[in-house]
C-alpha cells in the first residue's frame, strides 16, 4: 500500500512534465502535417475516380502502386546496364547535379563578386549575362556535345550553365548592396582585400548569395531530367524516357513523384545551409 502510494507520487510529476511536450507535438502534427495529407488524399481520390474506367489513358493511383510495387520495395537492385533500381537512377542524376552545381557555385560567386565590385565588369559583362541567361538549358546540349564529344561532361555542362546565372546575378546584387557603413568600417580598420572579402563582403552578401544558390539548385534539378532524356545512360531522366518508350506509365508516375521529392529536399537543404551560415538573416 505504502509502496504503491510512493510510486504514484514519483510518477505523477514526471508525467506532468512531458504531457505538454506531447501536446505541442500533437499540435504541430495537426497544423503542419494534417492539411497537406488531407489535400493529397482528396487529389488522389479525384485521380482514382477520373482514371478508374478501363478506357482511361492514364493509370489510377491504385494501379500505379500495384504496377510499381517491385520498384518501390527494392530501390537498389542492379541487373547490369541501365536496369538499375530507382535509388541508383536518382543517385546517378544527383551525382551529375553535384558536379555541375558545385562548379556553378564556385564560378558563379566569383563572377558575381567581380561584377558587383567593378563598374567596368558590370558594364561589360552584365548585358552578356542578361542575354545568355534566357537561353533554355537544353539549347546548350547540342553545342556542348559537339564540344566535349562525350555525353557525361555535356550533361554536367548543361547543369552548370543553367544554375550559374541566378548565382552570378544575386551575388553581384548582394555585393553592390553592401551598406556604405560596412565599407567605411573596413576602411577605418584598414582591412586588406582578402580580409574584406572574407570578413565583410561574403557575410554581408550571404543572404543574396543563398537566394541565388536556391534558385540555382532548383533549376539544375529541372535541367537534369531533360538533359538525361537526351543523353541516355543511368539517371532518372532517361529512366522516364525509357519507361515512356516501353509504355510503362506507372513507372513514369512513380519517377515523377521521386523527382519532386528529391527537388524539394535539395531546395530545403540549400535553404537550411543558408540559414545556418547567415544566422537567420536570410529567411528560408
Amino acid at each position, binding site marked *: 500500500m505504502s509502496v504503491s502510494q510512493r510510486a504514484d507520487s514519483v510518477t505523477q510529476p514526471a508525467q506532468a512534465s512531458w504531457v505538454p511536450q506531447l501536446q505541442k507535438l500533437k499540435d504541430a502534427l495537426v497544423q503542419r502535417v494534417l492539411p497537406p495529407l488531407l489535400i493529397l488524399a482528396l487529389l488522389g481520390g479525384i485521380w482514382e475516380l477520373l482514371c478508374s474506367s478501363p478506357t482511361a489513358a492514364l493509370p489510377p493511383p491504385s494501379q500505379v502502386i500495384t504496377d510499381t510495387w517491385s520498384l518501390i520495395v527494392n530501390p537498389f537492385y542492379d541487373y547490369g546496364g541501365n536496369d538499375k533500381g530507382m535509388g541508383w537512377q536518382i543517385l546517378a542524376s544527383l551525382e551529375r547535379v553535384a558536379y555541375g552545381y558545385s562548379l556553378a557555385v564556385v564560378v558563379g560567386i566569383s563572377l558575381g563578386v567581380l561584377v558587383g565590385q567593378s563598374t567596368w565588369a558590370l558594364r561589360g559583362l552584365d548585358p552578356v549575362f542578361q542575354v545568355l541567361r534566357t537561353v533554355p538549358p537544353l539549347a546548350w546540349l547540342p553545342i556542348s556535345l559537339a564540344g566535349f564529344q562525350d555525353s557525361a561532361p555535356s550533361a554536367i555542362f548543361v547543369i552548370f550553365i543553367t544554375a550559374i546565372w541566378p548565382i552570378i546575378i544575386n551575388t553581384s546584387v548582394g555585393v553592390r548592396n553592401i551598406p556604405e557603413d560596412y565599407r567605411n*568600417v573596413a*576602411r577605418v*580598420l*584598414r582591412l586588406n582585400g582578402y580580409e574584406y572579402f572574407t570578413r*565583410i563582403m561574403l557575410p554581408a552578401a550571404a543572404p543574396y548569395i543563398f537566394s541565388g544558390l536556391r534558385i540555382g539548385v532548383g533549376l539544375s534539378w529541372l535541367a537534369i531530367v531533360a538533359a538525361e532524356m537526351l543523353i541516355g545512360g543511368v539517371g532518372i531522366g532517361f529512366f522516364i524516357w525509357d519507361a515512356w518508350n516501353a509504355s510503362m506509365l506507372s513507372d513514369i508516375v512513380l519517377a515523377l513523384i521521386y523527382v519532386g521529392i528529391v527537388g524539394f529536399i535539395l531546395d530545403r537543404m540549400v535553404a537550411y545551409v543558408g540559414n545556418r551560415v547567415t544566422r537567420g538573416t536570410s529567411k528560408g
Partner: protein
Amino acid sequence: MTARYLSIEQVDMTFTRDGIDSQVLKNINLSVERGEYISIIGHSGCGKSTLLNIVAGLIDSTSGAVILDGKEVNDPGPDRSVVFQNHSLLPWLTVFENVALAVNKTFARSKSKAERHEWILKNLEMVGMTAARDKRPDEISGGMKQRVGIARALAMEPKVLLLDEPFGALDALTRAHLQEEVMRIQEELHNTIIMITHDVDEAVLLSDRIVMMTNGPSAKIGEILAIDLPRPRNRITLADDPRYNHYRQEVLRFLYEKQRKVESLAERRDKPAITDAAKARA
C-alpha cells in the same frame, strides 16, 4: 606656426555632380589640442559630417590638409576611429566579435593573443557591455549598440576619436546616460575627441570648445566658443549655473539668430540666392 596635435588647414571641399560644382566647405581652419573635446555644431546640411569624414580620411578634401600628430592624413586608419551615427556594427558578428575584429586587426603585431583578448574584455567592460558579449546586434537595444560602437572605436586606441552624431538616434534618457559615460571615459583616458552634434545641451555639457558652422553652401567656421566649466560636470547642478546658461544662449543665438535656417522652396530652386543672402548676413 606652432605644431598642434591635430590641425585642419585651409580645407575646401567641392563636390561635382553632373558637371555642376557645389562647394560644401570653404577655408576651414581648426587646431585641436591633445585631450581636447571639440563639438562641431550647425544646421543640417552645413557640411559637418563632410568635415568629420575628411578628418577620418574617408573622403579627400579638394584642397587643404589635415595634420595629426605631425603626419598628414590621406586615408582612413585606426588612429582616427569613428563612431558612426547608426552604430554600423556587423550584424553577423557578436558584440565580442565586433570589437575583436577591430582589436585583432589594429594590434595584430603589437599585442599577443591573450593580451588582445584581455583588451577586448576591458573595453567592453568600460562601456558596461560585458554581460552582452555573446549577443548579436539584433538582440540588443539601440543604446547598447552605440555602446559597442564606442567600445570598438576606443579599443583601437585612436589618437583622435571621431563621433558622428553618436547619440542622434537614441531616446532622450538613453542619450543622457551615454553622454555621462562618454564624459567619464574621457576623464579617465583623456582622449582627443571631435563630435558632430546638433544638440545644444549636449555640445555645452561635453565640450571644451564648440565650433559653430555657418549654413551651407560654402560653409565655414562661424564662431568658436570655449566652454570654461570645471569637470566633472553634472547636468543637474549645471542647469542652475549662470555660466552654463550663458554658453547655451550663445550657441542658440548663433544658430537661431545669426544663422537662421531659412529653407523655402524658392531658395532651394535658386541656390545662388542663398549664398548672397548668407554673405549679406555675415
